[in-house]
């Protein structure tokens, strides 16, 4: 029984990486994940990843921010302590537009970004789960779960044929752990 946990195909070029994904998929080898130093456009469709729903979150946070500050302004200047400024109405809606806009933007930005961090498990001090240290530098890495995907040599050959510059058989899932 081999000790290999993950098979990594390291590519030097994003187009060859895409070719590698195609080759693996054609041979029904399931892909665990792909790690790249830059965003690769079109890869999510290939891997069947659905569109991000962060846009909906952003919209809802924006609505929340605008409503919050508008209600605050209404409560403070109209309900709680209306001021007579030259006989003008206390409920001066146009004057509330700038602050409503600012907090819409503020809540959208923070709400959406924090949702992104939460959903992707990003937070300060999180132990990085890196499978190959060059994946943030100049290598485009396809990771394949070794369990059940045998024989490993076939996968190695497939990756090599597709243009992988290196194929690794890692005994540990994450190389970044001490």
């Amino acid at each position, binding site marked *: 029984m081999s000790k290999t946990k993950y098979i990594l195909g390291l590519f030097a070029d994003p187009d060859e990486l895409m070719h590698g994904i195609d080759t693996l998929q054609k041979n029904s080898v399931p892909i665990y994940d792909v790690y790249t*130093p830059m965003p690769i456009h079109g890869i999510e469709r290939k891997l069947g990843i659905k569109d991000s729903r962060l846009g909906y979150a952003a919209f809802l946070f924006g609505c929340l921010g605008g409503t919050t500050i508008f209600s605050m302004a209404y409560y403070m200047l109209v309900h709680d302590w209306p001021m007579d400024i030259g006989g003008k109405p206390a409920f001066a809606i146009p004057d509330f537009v700038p602050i409503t806009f600012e907090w819409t933007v503020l809540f959208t930005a923070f709400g959406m970004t924090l949702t992104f961090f939460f959903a992707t498990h990003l937070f300060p001090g999180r132990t990085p789960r890196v499978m190959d240290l060059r994946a943030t530098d100049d290598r485009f890495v396809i990771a394949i779960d070794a369990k059940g995907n045998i024989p490993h040599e076939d996968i190695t050959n497939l990756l090599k044929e597709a243009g992988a510059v290196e194929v690794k058989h890692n005994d540990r899932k994450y190389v970044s752990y001490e």
Partner: protein
Amino acid sequence: MASHSESIIREPLITGKDITYAQITNDVLRPVENMPGKAWWIGFSVASLGACLWVFAVSYTFWYGIGSWGLNKTIGWAWDITGFVWWVGIGHAGTLISAILLLFRQNWRNSINRSAEAMTIFAVICAATYVVSHMGRPWLAYWPLPLPNQFGSLWVNFNSPLVWDVFAISTYFSVSLVFWYTGLLPDLATIRDRATGIRRKIYSVASFGWTGSVKTWQRFETVCLILAGISTPLVLSVHTIVSMDFATSLEPGWHTTIFPPYFVAGAIFSGFAMVQTLLLVTRKVLGLENYITMFHIEAMNKIILLTGSIVGVAYLTEFFIAYYSAGEYEQYTFLNRFIGPYWWAGCMMYGCNVLMTQLMWFKKIRTNIPISWVLSIVVNIGMWFERFVIIVVSLHRDFVPSSWAMFYPTWVDMSVFVGSIGLFFTMFLLFIRVLPSIAMAEVKLILKSSSEQAKLKLIKGGHVEQEEVQFYKESLTSFDSVDINDYK
């Protein structure tokens, strides 16, 4: 797709012969991973002396009060607000580059957005210090916030542009910070994965555990796009609201409806000038000529020309409206800019901002690095004087001649201003030491399509029109990082 090849008639965004993904990482991280050179130390020493001066002058102001400034009964706002508006304006270019150019899919932003955004954050910090120090009693700086209080529950006045400004500047600063830091995550992870020991630990905490998996990148791009979408109106709103601090008053010279667009154009104008000032030096000192190319320099000069001309049109409009309004106070204010005791400030404003930038119409000047650098400083001097003219020169002679006065800055005024420049450069120099000054991931994205080597391959492939090749070669002659003999 990364493999799409771009038209040959577009100038390359990355020059150099053997640029690989690894090469980009090495080049960008050289200043981060090695000890800084002599130039950095000299710059840092001078800048931090300036920052010390700032600390001293601001502490002096807090201790002795606003009376240590040169303000008087007539001129109650002077260098403080001038400095504030100047710094906020400078900040605008960073957001323009990172947000508006992203929405317009301008790929050349990829190599300058990081440092421009950093510059935005540092400039807004400098601006914010003015807001706090001009309050006189900075320990009461929380008063503009809508907090429950014991003054009979007297709330802040949301009808006031000064309160809008508190909301606008604080939102702008925090959203810019979020945008900048989110963009930094992948590059911090790159440093982390190359570092060892304590450095690795620090960058590990800072990179939030970034891995670069497919889903992370997909969400990252969504977040960046939406942040760009909301930052675009945000940046326009910020200087609009700053201008309303003036425009909603009854002061001649301030009370004009053209102020919002005029201030926004001026802000972008001065911001790009500051980006140019910083990057022309940075690219040389850090050896980043292959990433910040002549194309970037010329493109920024074109934006300076455009926004400078918009500012020029706004000046003319102001003069025309002053004449057409037949309001004698308004007319006097504008005449006073030329014939009053501050005529020299008026000349600096109109001369530096309108006349000097018109030189940018000439390609020879746009592509000349020393001249561009000098002009970028001229623009920022001019923009400082613009704010000085609008604020002090309008205030010093308005409705009642018996209250006319002059403004004489004290050494504290000057030290706060000079010190804030020192503070700004200290922060910028620290930034280029510890963080990647170019967004590596984004530059890698355009390597296969827009680099010089990709285009050279296209030419060698032979499937491009000869005329286009000729045009391309001619455009390369102005590049200082390209050896034109390779194309002979």
